[in-house]
């Protein structure tokens, strides 16, 4: 479905930069809506003209404060127009944007600000300013801290602090003194200039800073849009961290290339409601996000009356049948089509509306692989969900599904101008105009990752007969049992997590006799279940260790086991006494498991699981967001999954 956007395609010449394209868009679309922000309960539009004004004066303000070409400007905060103004302004002034995750811990903020040599930090409000002031003493290169949300800021006197609007005022003064300065700054940029210094979330070591150029970003946006066009009239909701390459891809690259409207939610807590109000045309999100959507539906289902459940089940069965036809690329017979129409009218349409997907043309999932169960679910309810594969080092995307060619177990085909090959060792390598320039201050890692223009991903995979890329997990994440059989823990985890009661699963088994799992129950769903079953509990820990809850989880694992090959079945498991948390470094900020860290932290626990004992005592440190640490002690029971070994393979 390669729709062509209105007008002619933008030609990416060597001197085209993001700011130049931005200035052009702003001139052409002038009074049209560039973005909206929900504030005080109302969606407020911001025109392209206002967007340009804000960026222009902020950029000049930064210049007035001494920003030179090539200087790094770090940014931290939620998705909001000011965040985008700041980033665009930094680029217009010839600077390099560095984004930090809003919930990053002090150490991470310090490491990135220091490593990137940032001279400016644009923070959102009090919380971010506090972080910035704390690290300032240890980051001597940091000069000014800009903030935009005045709440709670009345008593801050630090001379390094300056308000967003004050920077813009300085910019206005400079504009009055030197008219044409902004245009000159924008004109100076070249496509090969670095525009982003992007720190990869790093499941293993310290984050590495990838250097991306304007051309990298623009080419990536253009090539994605060549696959799936977006229109100027489209809406997009910007709610994922700006520090994630996927959000940059959509909000900056595709946003400028297609010129669609960005919408910023009111608060992080209101995303779901705001998504429904806007009902975007395209979504690019992490697997997590889709898993959460399915969970929402499953929970509502558990809550519904018997009659409603029956209707839902029936409609979903029809949906699954049609999805299977579609995924197998066979036309559905007309009776099924007719039933599908009915199911859509009665159930799926409403479901899509509630999920904020009623206008969706393309939904992309990236970051980590989304399990096939989720995939089928979305196609069953009529959402055109596709997998994206790529990494920060290639500006976010290199491979994607085409609308008429979707397979649940692949990630699709390369986007235009992109080559993907497999090395003899099975590693995925790719080459395109979007491949990055190297890691900042890390020639060793650069040499390892970039060879002859090819990007070595560290992922294993193969290309199937249809030309689709199949990607396993990170090479180091393929498990080999002691009898030599191989399996992918992430695949198992995704299967387990399809149960609404299981929030996180961590599968073990590398060089062990069998697979085992550490489960984090979903406190709200299991809590509700406990309530319905009159089980009293006071804490997550108590709930997780209740024998009836263990039994429930046991049943869920058996269900998941039934669909797995015999070697990969989970034989033992335990319910962990706490949820995995990024603040405890158990997950990355994009919520992937950090296996090496987990292995280390829960070493005794893992040993006990394989020792055959049925109880284990643990003591773990829990870190609060402000850095405080508390000790938690618990005794956890380990359970067997009956007949996991002699189940018939149904797959």
């Amino acid at each position: 479905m390669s729709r062509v956007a209105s007008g002619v395609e933008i030609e990416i010449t060597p001197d085209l930069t993001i700011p130049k394209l931005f200035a052009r868009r702003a001139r052409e679309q002038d009074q049209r809506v560039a973005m909206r922000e929900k504030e005080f309960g109302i969606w407020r539009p911001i025109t392209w003209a206002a967007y340009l004004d804000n960026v222009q004066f902020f950029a000049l303000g930064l210049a007035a404060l001494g920003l030179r070409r090539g200087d790094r400007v770090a940014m931290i905060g939620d998705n909001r127009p000011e965040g985008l103004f700041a980033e665009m302004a930094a680029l217009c002034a010839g600077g390099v944007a560095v984004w930090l995750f809003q919930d990053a811990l002090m150490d991470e903020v310090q490491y990135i600000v220091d490593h990137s040599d940032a001279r400016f930090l644009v923070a959102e409000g009090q919380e971010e300013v506090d972080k910035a002031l704390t690290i300032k003493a240890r980051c001597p290169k940091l000069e000014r801290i800009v903030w935009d949300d005045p709440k709670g800021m009345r008593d801050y006197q630090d001379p390094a602090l300056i308000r967003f609007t004050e920077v813009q005022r300085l910019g206005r003064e400079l504009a009055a003194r030197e008219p044409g300065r902004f245009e000159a700054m924008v004109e100076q940029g070249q496509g090969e200039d670095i525009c982003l210094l992007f720190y990869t979330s790093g499941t293993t070591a310290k984050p590495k800073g990838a250097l991306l150029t304007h051309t990298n970003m623009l080419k990536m946006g253009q090539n994605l849009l060549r696959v799936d066009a977006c229109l100027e009239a489209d809406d997009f909701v910007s709610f994922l961290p700006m520090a994630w390459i996927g959000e940059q891809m959509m909000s900056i690259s595709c946003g400028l290339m297609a010129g669609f409207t960005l919408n910023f939610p009111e608060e992080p807590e209101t995303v779901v409601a705001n998504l429904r109000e806007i009902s975007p045309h395209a979504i690019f999100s992490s697997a997590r996000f889709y898993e959460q959507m399915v969970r929402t539906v499953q929970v509502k289902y558990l809550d519904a009356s018997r009659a409603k459940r029956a209707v839902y089940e029936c409609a979903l069965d029809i949906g699954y049948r049609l999805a299977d036809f579609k995924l197998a690329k066979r036309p559905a017979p007309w009776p099924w089509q007719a039933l599908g129409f009915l199911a859509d009218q009665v159930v799926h349409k409403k479901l899509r509306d509630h999920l904020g997907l009623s206008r969706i043309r393309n939904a992309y999932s990236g970051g980590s692989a989304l399990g096939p169960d989720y995939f089928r679910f979305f196609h069953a309810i009529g959402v055109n969900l596709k997998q994206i594969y790529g990494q920060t080092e290639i500006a976010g995307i290199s491979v994607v599904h085409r609308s008429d060619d979707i397979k649940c177990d692949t990630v699709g085909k390369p986007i235009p101008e992109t080559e993907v090959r497999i090395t003899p060792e099975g590693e995925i390598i790719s080459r395109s105009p979007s491949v990055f320039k190297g890691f900042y201050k890390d020639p060793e890692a650069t040499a390892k990752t970039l060879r002859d223009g090819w990007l070595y991903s560290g992922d294993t995979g193969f290309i199937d007969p249809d030309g689709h890329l199949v990607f396993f997990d990170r090479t180091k994440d393929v498990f080999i049992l002691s009898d030599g059989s191989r399996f992918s823990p992430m695949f198992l985890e995704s299967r387990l997590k399809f149960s609404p009661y299981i929030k996180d699963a961590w599968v073990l088994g590398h060089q062990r006799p069998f697979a085992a799992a550490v489960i984090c129950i979903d406190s709200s769903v299991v809590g509700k279940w406990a309530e319905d079953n009159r089980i009293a509990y006071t804490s997550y820990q108590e709930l997780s260790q209740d024998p009836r809850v263990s039994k429930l989880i046991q049943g869920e694992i058996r269900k998941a086991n039934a669909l797995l090959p015999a070697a990969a079945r989970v034989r033992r498991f335990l319910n962990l006494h706490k949820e995995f948390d990024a603040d405890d470094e158990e997950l990355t900020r994009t919520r992937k498991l950090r296996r090496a860290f987990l292995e280390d932290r829960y070493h005794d626990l893992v040993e006990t699981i394989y020792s055959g004992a049925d109880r284990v005592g643990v003591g773990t440190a829990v870190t609060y967001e402000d850095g405080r640490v508390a000790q938690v002690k618990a005794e956890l029971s380990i359970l067997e999954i009956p007949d996991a070994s002699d189940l018939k393979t149904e797959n």
Partner: protein
Amino acid sequence: MTQPGLEEIHLKVDDLRISFGGVQALVGVSLDVRRGEIFSLIGPNGAGKTVLLNCINGLYRPDAGRVLFEGQDIAHLAPHKRAALGIARTFQKIELFSGMTVLDNIRLGRHLHMRTGILSGAIYAGKAAREERVHRGFIEREIIDLLEIAHVRDKIVGMLPYGLQKRVELARALALQPRILLLDEPMAGLNLEEVEDMARFILDLNEEERWRVTCVLVEHDMGVVMDISHRVAVLNFGEKIAEGPPAEVQINPEVTRAYLGEVEDLYVSRR
């Protein structure tokens, strides 16, 4: 905590006495609350703290004594008249309309400022609609945003967790645009994070230019009281036994004996 610059007496309680049957709940209590300060009342259970708040906002009629608000004796006024003067309060046990939405509860607190009559309100055009919009704007900008309850504005209050309900109650009190705010145990039943949030909200209300509300706080969480109050008064069996800045009160021997010493376990700080 530094003293606010203004020394003007905002609320004066003079020799207040009240008894219930044979129990003397307040035995001649006198207090001066200065404009712009956070004034805390502490003391063991049954010391008369809530009774004192009830006398100030008019739920109880004292047997003797005066309550002066901005120099005017208000002891004879009905509670709603006192509210109109700018005295708002929250309650120890949440007193919200649990079947209504958050927004409706807050709007109710705003009712006092509405000038529209029943008829024009029903027709809802012109002036009435304009007024409604202005008030709605005030609620959104100054209250919902400040207290961070945007994500629940359309939720039914009864369905919300306790910590949020406490915030909604504060929101409703704020809708009155009070000049003095009586807070009866705003931290009770909250977890650590919620306590910190609530303390920050109270400080915001007290210090933010737009609000500058004088706060009278009844609270058991000593950590919070000592952190945010400008001055503290200690009640014991209906009598004021000490008054002064937190640092002084903390080391007052009579206070330690009467209060902290005896029932220490009950009132230890969460921090």
